[in-house]
């Protein structure tokens, strides 16, 4: 068993001193000026505690110095060190490099410490070819690829390496710069990573099982159910994400994973549409929006799909919004926790709030709360 470890040593430094992240040299310098000290190393060490008991059975592959080597050694683990970096001056490029080398090294799991930015760097390098898991140390943690806390990250990693945790695809988020400049927090869906998850069960042995419907199978069942109910006189706005994409797959259409596409009578009318294009295409038509929540936080609008603006939502109407979610997605959000909306328009948020049906399987629905 090989586990890769990449630590973004500067992630999270901005938070303590009130800065929104540490992307960029200037921000980093400012943080240091304000007296910020690294957060990642300590959290990584906390996570690695769960790996220590199985350290003799695995090979830990990591980057030198503060990008992983130091953290591992201080836990008593002797890692294999790859990729040269300059001490104290690590950048995103180093993260990406290291990730690429881990890919080449065929690690079984890539454990990384950082925030959304780090997750994006990892995702850019390995996409979904390696299982990965994030130790949350950054300020911005909107991506669903992170464990709840460092200790859980370590435990989950250890479980996965022992064949006791299945994989699911989790969203990597990217901040919506435009919205950010307008003072709003919104994000785009950047991509996906394959992430181990804990199928919470009362049985102690939680190994991955071929009868635990893996996410693809569940998505397929949902897709089947939705497609059976599609009618010719409606236009379907397919939001980003793998669960929605499964519907397109069922129709035999190539859908963009990260964008919003429009489907009518089983054919693609437009792909990767922005708000304006969308509004034009759905004008005066009967429309349904098919959307799936983002893992962990459970946002259905306001994170990952800014194209579905308040204007679009108002035009389509609450009753024409079809929400789909797999069991594992709901598990990551927490059963009983509400789904969230943050469209940027209070009125729209209020309209969407309340109770709604969510499709969770073939002929299976759940009634869940939407909150803003």
């Amino acid at each position, binding site marked *: 068993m090989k586990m890769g470890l990449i630590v973004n040593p500067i992630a999270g430094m901005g938070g303590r001193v009130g800065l929104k992240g540490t992307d960029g040299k200037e921000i980093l310098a400012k943080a240091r000026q304000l007296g910020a000290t690294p957060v990642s190393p300590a959290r990584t060490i906390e996570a690695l505690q769960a790996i220590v008991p199985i350290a003799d059975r695995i090979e830990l592959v990591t980057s030198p110095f503060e990008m992983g080597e130091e953290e591992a050694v201080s836990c008593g683990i002797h890692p294999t060190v790859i990729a040269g970096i300059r001490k104290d001056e690590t950048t995103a490029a180093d993260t990406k490099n290291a990730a690429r080398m881990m890919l080449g090294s065929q690690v079984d799991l890539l454990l990384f410490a950082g925030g959304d930015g780090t997750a994006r760097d990892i995702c850019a390098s390995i996409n979904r070819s390696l299982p990965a898991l994030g130790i949350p140390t950054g300020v911005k943690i909107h991506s669903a690829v992170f464990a709840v806390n460092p200790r859980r990250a370590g435990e989950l990693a250890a479980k996965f390496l022992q064949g006791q945790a299945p994989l699911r695809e989790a969203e990597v988020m990217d901040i919506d710069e435009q919205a950010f400049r307008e003072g709003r927090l919104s994000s785009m869906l950047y991509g996906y990573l394959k992430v181990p998850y804990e*199928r919470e*069960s*009362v*049985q102690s*042995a939680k190994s991955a*099982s*071929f*009868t*635990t*419907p893996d996410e693809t199978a569940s998505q397929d069942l949902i897709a089947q159910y939705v497609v059976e109910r599609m009618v010719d006189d409606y236009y379907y706005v397919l939001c980003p994400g793998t669960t929605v994409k499964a519907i397109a797959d069922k129709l035999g259409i190539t859908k963009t994973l990260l964008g919003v596409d429009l489907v009518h009578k089983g054919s693609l009318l437009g792909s990767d549409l922005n708000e304006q294009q969308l509004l034009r295409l759905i004008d005066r038509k009967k429309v349904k929006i098919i959307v799936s929540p983002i893992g962990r936080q459970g946002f259905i609008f306001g994170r990952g799909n800014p194209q579905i603006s308040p204007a679009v939502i108002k035009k389509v109407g609450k009753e024409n919004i079809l929400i789909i979610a797999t069991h594992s997605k709901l598990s990551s959000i927490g059963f009983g926790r509400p789904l969230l909306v943050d469209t940027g328009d209070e009125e729209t948020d209020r309209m969407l709030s309340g109770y709604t049906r969510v499709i969770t*399987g073939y002929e*299976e629905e759940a009634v869940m709360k939407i909150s803003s």
Partner: protein
Amino acid sequence: MTTHRYIPNSDPEIKRELLDGIGVREPEELFAAIPAKIRFHGRLDLPYAASEYEVKRRIETSLSKNITSNEMLSFVGAGCWPHYVPAVCDEINSRSEFLTAYTGDTYSDLGRFQALFEFQSMIGELVAMDAVTLPTYDWANASGDAIRMAAMATDRHEILVARTTSPEKRSVMRAYCGRLAEMQLIDYDPETGQISLEDLEQKISPNTAAVYIENPTYLGLIETQGERIAETAHDNGSLLIVGVEPLSLGILTAPGEYGADIVCGEGQPLGLHMNFGGASLGFLACRDEPRFLSSTGHRLITITKTERDGEWGFTYVLPERSMYAAREKAPSITGTGAALCAITAAVYLSALGPKGLREVAETIMQKSHYAMKRLSEIRGIKAPFFKSPHFEEFTVNFRSRKTVRRINQILLKLGIQGGKDLSKEFPELRNTALYCVTEIHTKEDIDRLTAALKEALK
């Protein structure tokens, strides 16, 4: 009110301690969540509490109105059969630990798990299958589970069922079909009573998930074409489900040997008293393949090792599959099944052993054949109705103006319970009853029946 003998804390002093510990003054406060509007404020229309003596007397008075099969001669079976229950069976199933345990884990309940695993093992040997589930309520429910298993394992949605299966059982099976499967009946050969292979070949289709036969059938005859039926089913990509009465397997080939993929049956003959039909045991066995096991909703116990060498432990297989974890995604229902009955069955089968099982089956067959022979000597009686080998039950056809109902009334006056009246279930058999003869019937019993029937038909 004095402290109730089953409610130790009903003592007023203890109640005070509890209430103080909770921090309330009156117990009523604890029910605050129930809106007053929907509460029941009256007194239930039930008698006042009775002492143990009064309860015992009342029930024994009621029960004394029963006439048991110890007090009269009974020849009725049809799903619940009279057999000898060795004393050791009741000894073990009255053990209070087995009687009062429920869902502990293997650490506190090792004995329960082991006894159930031993039951599973013995059933596996009986029917020649490697996988056996925890049992369900009875044969009818087990066959319902078998149907669902077959439909899911093959992803086909039609089941062909032998027409000689009892209509009551078919009604339960239909309930289990839900929207998963449709049932179609296969006709039987009018002479032998066994499945009509022509009809089977005609009706089997690419949509057939499985063929369900019983052996012996409800009408008592042995289905000798097992191999052929299995072949036909398998050639079509369908499965063979065989429903069995377990004692017959002392002399009959195990279904697993002639091609069954799933086997179900009734375990009541294995050490369970008749209990007015209230003690039954539906066992279910199948091929040890993931596609079958993931299509059952029942818990599956596997043996395993522990951290200590030489120790046996037990745990569940694919636990996320059952309804407790999967809710509506589960393949079938499961619940408080028939564990104590299964443990009893394990005791019974151990007591009999290989020789005993064979002997009881041979004895039953010999006695039932003696009965058939003697009854056939009576003018107007044809026993059995079908030209096939039979096990412990057989059809008795009466060529008489007297109906089976009338005949049974006459028999009753002579202290004999006659066979089940089949006129409603199988009207094509005309005036026919289903008689059951087991190892408990003596030659005298059978001779007495013969004389009585002769008398009745005059």
